[in-house]
C-alpha cells in the first residue's frame, strides 16, 4: 500500500482495514473528548469573565441606587474596565473614560433588578476582540437606569486557541502513533498466516508430503496450522491409497487383455497350433474376466460418486435375496445351492444395482469356499437389518479378517486369478455398507465356515400404493 489511489478505494487487506478501523475509532473518540474539553474550558473561562463583569455592574448599580453615581466611572487598579450607565432614553449618564463620547453600547433595557448578558464581537474600545456584555437594570432616586459592563475575552480567546492548537497537535501525533502501532501489531500477528499460505501454495502444485509451519504460539493461528497439517496427512494417505488402487486396477485389467491378445495373435499367426473351439473358449474366459472386473470397477465408481444420493431409493433387501436365489437354482451343478431365511420385507434406502451386486458378491464368494452348504439369512436388529451369508468351508483366520475387505486383497498369493473373483467383490460390500452408515464383518458361521455379516440401517416401508423402486 505505497501508492496513493487516485480515486478513494476501500482498502482490501486485513491489515489495512484493521489499522483504518482502529485509527478511526481512536480519532472519533479522542475528537469528541477534545472538543468536549475545549467547550468546557471555553464555558469556564467565559463564565469567569462574566462574573467579573457582573460584579462590576452590581457595584455601579449600588452607586447609582445610592445616588452617588459619578459621571466618570473608573475601576481601581485597571484601566481596561468598561462600564456605562444609560437612562431610559438611551442617553449616557456615566461611563468609564475609555467610552467617553460613545453612544449607548446596546439597546438592552432590562427591568430594574434583572440582568442580561451577551457575548459581542467588538466594542468601541476594541472592535476585533470579543467581550462579554452584561446589562443590569437598576433604579436610582431619579429614575431607572441600565448599567452596562463588559469584560474582555481576548485573553480567554488566546488561551482557547493555544489549547486547541496543542490538542490538535497531540491528536494528530496520537493518531499517527495508533496507526503505525496497529499496522505493526497486525502485521506481526498475521505473518504466520502468510507463511502458511506460501507453504500451501507449494503443496498444491507439487507434492503432499510438505506440512505448514506451526508457529507454536498456542493461539488461533497455531491451531489452524495444526488442523491443516492433520488434513494434509489425511490427503496424503488418501492420495497414496488412490494411487495404489489405480496401479492394482491397471494391472488386473491388463492381465486378461494380454492373455486374450496373445491367444488370438498366436491363433492367427499359427492356425495349426489350436482349434477354433479352444481358441474361442480361451478368449471367452478372459473376456468374462474382463467383464467381471469392469463391472466391479464401475460399481466402486458409483459408490465413490458424491452424486450417489440421487440414486438412493427404497429397496427391499429380502426381495433381492430371493431374486438372487431363484436365479441361482440349477444354474451350475458344481455349486452349492443357496438356502434362504428372510422375512417378507426388509426395507432399506440404497442404490438397488449396488445392493444386488453386493449380495451377488457375497453369495458367489461363499459358493467358492463352501464344501456343500451356503445360507443367506436376513435378521431384524433394532433399527437395522443384518444380512448374514454363511458357508461350511474353511473360514477366515482371525488375523486376515480386517484385510479381506480391502481392494485387491489376496490372502493367498499362489491362488490363481483364474479360479474366480476379481479381488473387488468384498471391497464393494464394505464400501456399500459404509456409504449407508452400516458395517461389515466376518466371523465363524454356525455351519462351520465363515459368516459374512452386513449391517444396514433400516428404512420405513414405502407408502401403500407406491411401487418399490
Amino acid at each position, binding site marked *: 500500500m505505497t501508492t496513493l489511489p487516485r480515486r478513494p478505494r476501500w482498502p482490501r487487506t486485513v491489515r489495512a482495514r484493521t489499522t483504518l478501523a482502529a485509527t478511526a475509532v481512536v480519532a472519533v473518540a479522542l475528537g469528541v473528548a477534545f472538543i468536549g474539553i475545549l467547550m468546557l474550558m471555553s464555558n469556564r473561562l467565559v463564565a469567569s469573565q462574566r462574573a467579573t463583569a457582573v460584579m462590576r455592574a452590581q457595584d455601579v448599580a449600588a452607586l447609582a441606587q445610592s445616588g452617588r453615581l459619578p459621571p466618570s466611572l473608573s475601576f481601581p487598579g485597571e484601566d481596561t474596565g468598561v462600564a456605562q450607565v444609560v437612562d431610559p432614553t438611551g442617553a449616557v449618564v456615566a461611563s468609564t473614560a475609555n467610552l467617553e463620547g460613545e453612544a449607548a453600547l446596546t439597546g438592552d433595557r432590562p427591568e430594574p433588578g434583572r440582568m442580561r448578558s451577551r457575548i459581542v464581537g467588538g466594542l468601541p474600545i476594541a472592535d476585533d476582540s470579543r467581550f462579554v456584555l452584561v446589562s443590569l437594570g437598576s433604579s436610582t432616586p431619579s429614575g431607572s437606569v441600565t448599567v452596562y459592563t463588559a469584560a474582555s475575552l481576548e485573553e480567554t480567546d488566546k488561551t482557547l486557541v493555544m489549547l486547541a492548537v496543542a490538542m490538535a497537535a497531540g491528536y494528530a501525533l496520537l493518531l499517527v502513533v495508533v496507526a503505525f502501532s496497529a499496522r505493526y501489531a497486525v502485521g506481526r500477528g498475521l505473518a504466520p498466516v502468510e507463511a502458511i499460505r506460501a507453504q500451501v501454495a507449494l503443496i498444491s502444485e507439487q507434492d503432499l508430503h510438505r506440512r505448514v509451519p506451526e508457529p507454536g504460539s498456542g493461539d488461533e493461528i497455531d491451531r489452524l496450522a495444526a488442523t491443516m497439517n492433520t488434513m494434509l496427512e489425511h490427503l496424503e494417505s488418501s492420495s497414496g491409497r488412490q494411487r495404489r488402487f489405480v496401479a492394482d486396477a491397471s494391472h488386473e485389467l491388463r492381465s486378461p*487383455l*494380454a*492373455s486374450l*491378445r496373445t*491367444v488370438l495373435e498366436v491363433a492367427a499367426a*499359427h492356425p495349426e497350433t489350436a482349434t477354433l473351439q479352444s481358441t474361442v473358449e480361451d478368449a471367452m474366459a478372459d473376456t468374462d474376466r474382463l467383464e467381471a472386473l469392469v463391472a466391479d470397477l464401475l460399481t466402486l465408481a458409483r459408490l465413490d460418486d458424491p452424486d450417489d444420493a440421487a440414486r438412493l431409493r427404497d429397496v427391499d433387501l429380502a426381495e433381492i435375496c430371493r431374486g438372487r436365489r431363484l436365479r441361482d437354482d440349477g444354474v451350475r451343478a458344481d455349486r452349492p445351492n443357496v438356502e434362504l431365511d428372510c422375512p417378507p420385507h426388509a426395507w432399506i434406502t440404497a442404490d438397488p444395482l449396488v445392493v444386488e451386486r453386493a449380495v451377488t458378491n457375497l453369495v458367489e464368494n461363499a459358493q467358492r469356499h463352501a464344501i456343500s452348504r451356503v445360507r443367506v439369512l436376513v435378521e431384524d436388529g433394532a433399527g437395522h437389518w443384518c444380512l448374514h451369508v454363511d458357508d461350511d468351508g474353511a473360514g477366515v483366520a482371525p488375523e486376515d479378517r480386517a484385510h479381506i475387505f480391502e481392494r485387491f486383497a489376496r490372502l493367498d*498369493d499362489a491362488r490363481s486369478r483364474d479360479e474366480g473373483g476379481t479381488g473387488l467383490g468384498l471391497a464393494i460390500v464394505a464400501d456399500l455398507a459404509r456409504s449407508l452408515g452400516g458395517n461389515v464383518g466376518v466371523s465363524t458361521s454356525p455351519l462351520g465356515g465363515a459368516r459374512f455379516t452386513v449391517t444396514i440401517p433400516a428404512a420405513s416401508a414405502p407408502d401403500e400404493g407406491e411401487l418399490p423402486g
Partner: protein
Amino acid sequence: MRVLVVEDETRLAAALKRGLEAEGFATDVALDGTDGLWLATENDYDAIVLDIMLPGVNGFQICRKLREAHDWTPILMLTAKDGEYDHAEALDGGADDYLSKPFSYVVLVAHLRALMRRGKPARPTRLEVGDLIVDPATRTCHRGDVEVELTPREFAILEYLVRRPAQVIPKSELLDHVWDFGFDGDPNVVEVHISALRRKIDQPFGTHSIRTVRGAGYRLVADPANAGEGEEAYGTP
C-alpha cells in the same frame, strides 16, 4: 534354441508356448516363481521370458539371483504394472529387455530374436575388478566394504577403465570418451584426474590398481602385487 517362459497366467503361458514352438523354439513353461527359478538354474536356456508379478519368488528377484550367480542368459521381462520405476528397476536389476502388457505376440518374438543375436557375454550390472566394485546404476564405488566417494568425472574415468580390465587405454581414448567434443582445455586434465583417483581408491588401501604404461596409457588391474612390463605404479605415460 531353447526358451523358458515364466508366467502365472495359464492361458497366456499356454498360448506363448504354442506360438514359440511353432516358430521353432523349444519352450519350457513355469507357472510360478519358484519353479521358474529352479528351471532357469538347472537348465541352459538361450532366452528367458519372465513375468514380474509371480506367486512365490517374483520376477525381479529371479533376475537378480541369476545375475548374482553369473548367469548371463538374456532376459525379457513382462509386466502389467504401471510406472516408469518398474521399467527402470527391471533393467537396472539385470534384465536385457522389457515389454509392457498387453504386448503384441509378434513384437515379443522379434524382441526374443534380437536378444538371442546378442549372445551371452558377461553383462554384469555391477563391475568388479579384484575387490574394487563399481555400480553404474547407483553411481557408487566400493573397495571391499568401504565406500569411496568420487566426483562424476572421476567415476566416469574409472567406469571406462573397469569395463576394459587389464587393457591399456591411451590418454586420448579417455579424453574422447569421458569428455564431450566441446572440451578445449589441457589434455593433462586426464593425468590430474588419474592422480585424484589413485589418491582415493589406491592410496588409502595400499593397493596399486591403476597402472601407468609408459608411452601407452593406463590400465586397471585386479592384483595389485603384479606389475607388468614397462609399468609403473605412478607416473605419466
